[in-house]
């Protein structure tokens, strides 16, 4: 079976560690940690990167036992935790805040979403929850619920294409797609999600681990966490230099150079942090539940977080 580990002794260091993330600006720590070899250096084992294009894909791989550590948005983290009754993941640190934008076409009135065609990168992901919450707050209903707002999940690249062609009126996306919509497709920034939260702290990326991996290799996880903290501190200390390195690594991954202006604009909208932002995540979970995305039981996030290691590493 693809699940589970190889035949190892508990406590022994694993032969390799599988790290899942998306090749995005909001996952900068992962991009840098893999590209610069920081992760491998800290844990003393081989790091196998697993790249995903959506949070739900990453979640599926986690369920299938195919990744050990995962950079993931808060919404997939919560729904994965709840679906598996806590068996699939624990959040051990925060990674990024912000970098989540609602962009509209210039002719659209931000306060009149009647009949619009909107998109998010996937049902139930962080941007999707944000947009659904906004719609609910302002009294708009989607077509599934008998309203007239079309809310479609689609790949970010497709969002860009369709937005350019006027097939979409707006989208709530993560960076750098938000900046691309604005700079390349003539979109207008309607909401920067940071503006909606106290102190601008809105979780965008968290670092999660499979519980059985955590209990089997606490030492490895701890070292990984150290690497994560170190990279985060480095970014905070040298944002411009880090940006250049992230940009380079992403260009490598995607096989073509990225637009400087876009990256600069996007980078400025993201805060990198190890703060787990637990309160905001709980609030997000409530919103997702209200939007009908988390099933019938009120979310109970009692042991979503396991911050003991983080407190040891970064007291």
């Amino acid at each position: 079976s693809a699940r589970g580990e190889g035949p190892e002794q508990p406590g022994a260091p694993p032969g390799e560690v599988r790290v899942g993330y998306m090749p995005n600006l909001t996952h900068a720590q992962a991009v840098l940690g893999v590209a610069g070899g920081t992760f491998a250096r800290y844990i003393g084992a081989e790091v196998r990167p697993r790249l995903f294009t959506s949070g739900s894909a990453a979640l599926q791989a986690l369920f299938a036992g195919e990744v050990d550590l995962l950079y993931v948005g808060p919404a997939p983290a919560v729904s994965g935790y709840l679906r598996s009754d806590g068996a699939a993941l624990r959040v051990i640190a925060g990674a990024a805040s912000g970098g989540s934008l609602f962009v509209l076409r210039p002719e659209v009135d931000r306060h009149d979403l009647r009949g619009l065609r909107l998109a998010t990168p996937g049902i139930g992901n962080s941007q999707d929850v944000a947009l659904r919450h906004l719609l609910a707050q302002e009294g708009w209903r989607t077509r599934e619920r008998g309203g007239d707002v079309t809310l479609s999940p689609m790949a970010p690249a497709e969002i860009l294409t369709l937005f350019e062609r006027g097939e979409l009126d707006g989208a709530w996306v993560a960076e750098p797609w938000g900046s691309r919509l604005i700079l390349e497709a003539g979109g207008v920034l309607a909401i920067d999600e940071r503006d909606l939260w106290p102190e601008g702290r809105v979780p965008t990326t968290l670092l999660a681990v499979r519980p059985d991996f955590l209990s089997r290799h606490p030492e490895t996880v701890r070292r990984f966490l150290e690497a994560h903290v170190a990279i985060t501190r480095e970014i905070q200390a040298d944002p411009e230099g880090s940006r250049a390195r992230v940009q380079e690594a992403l260009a490598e991954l995607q096989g073509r150079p990225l637009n400087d202006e876009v990256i600069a604009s996007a980078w400025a909208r993201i805060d990198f942090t190890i703060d787990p932002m637990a309160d905001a995540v709980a609030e997000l979970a409530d919103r997702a539940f209200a939007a009908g995305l988390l099933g019938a039981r009120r979310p109970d996030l009692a042991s979503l977080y396991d911050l003991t290691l983080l407190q040891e590493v970064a007291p």
Partner: protein
Amino acid sequence: MARWKAGLVSAALLLLCWQGLCWAGLWPRYVFPWPADVAATLWRLISTMELAVALLHTVKRIGLGFGLSAAGGLLLGLGLSRSRTLSDLLGPLVQGLQSMPSICWYPLAILWFGWNEGALLFVTTAGALFAVASAAESGVRNIPPGYIRAAATMGARGWRLYTRVVLPAALPSLLTGLRLGWSFAWRSLMAGELLFLNLGLGHLLAMGRDLGDAAQVMAVIVAILAVGVLVDRACFSRAEAAVRLRFGFDKAA
């Protein structure tokens, strides 16, 4: 009926095997849901009307898409069967396009028609059109020539020869072609709904996937299976049985 009973027994057996696999615990429950979970989810989807809404959209789409490809395919096939030159020229194209998984058109369809029902309709139709056309062509070509000659000596010509002799004689092949076309259209539509459009069964499935809700995925699969079996049984099997009976094909077997 004995066949009914066998169907029930086999369904029961399936459920038992499923539950057995669950108990065996190869996978955790959130990955391999229990029959009870799926039943509960199905009930939720039914009671919240989500399933009904999705079904409505899917049925509308498959109806339109399959209808278009059936009509277009029959026309194209009959046209090809009328003229040797036409068939020599377009035949290879039709054959080639028939072998094309129509879902591959979808990135282009979106560019051409936009993010809307039109693109999905294109993908669904392209999936079936050419299969129906080539079945129709070969069906008409393989009519026993005796029928045509007999009808000709009785004075049937042109349009009448077509509607009164050629089409009925080709009916068994046409039906086979339509059934094949349906199965391609249905596959294309499901892939299309999964990939890019909201509303519809495929979308409900994608939602289950995105939310990590295996029970919902399974529940929607059950619904999709039900639609497929229903159409197969209620329409195609029945029509084929009627034709077989009338043409006396079963006698030979």
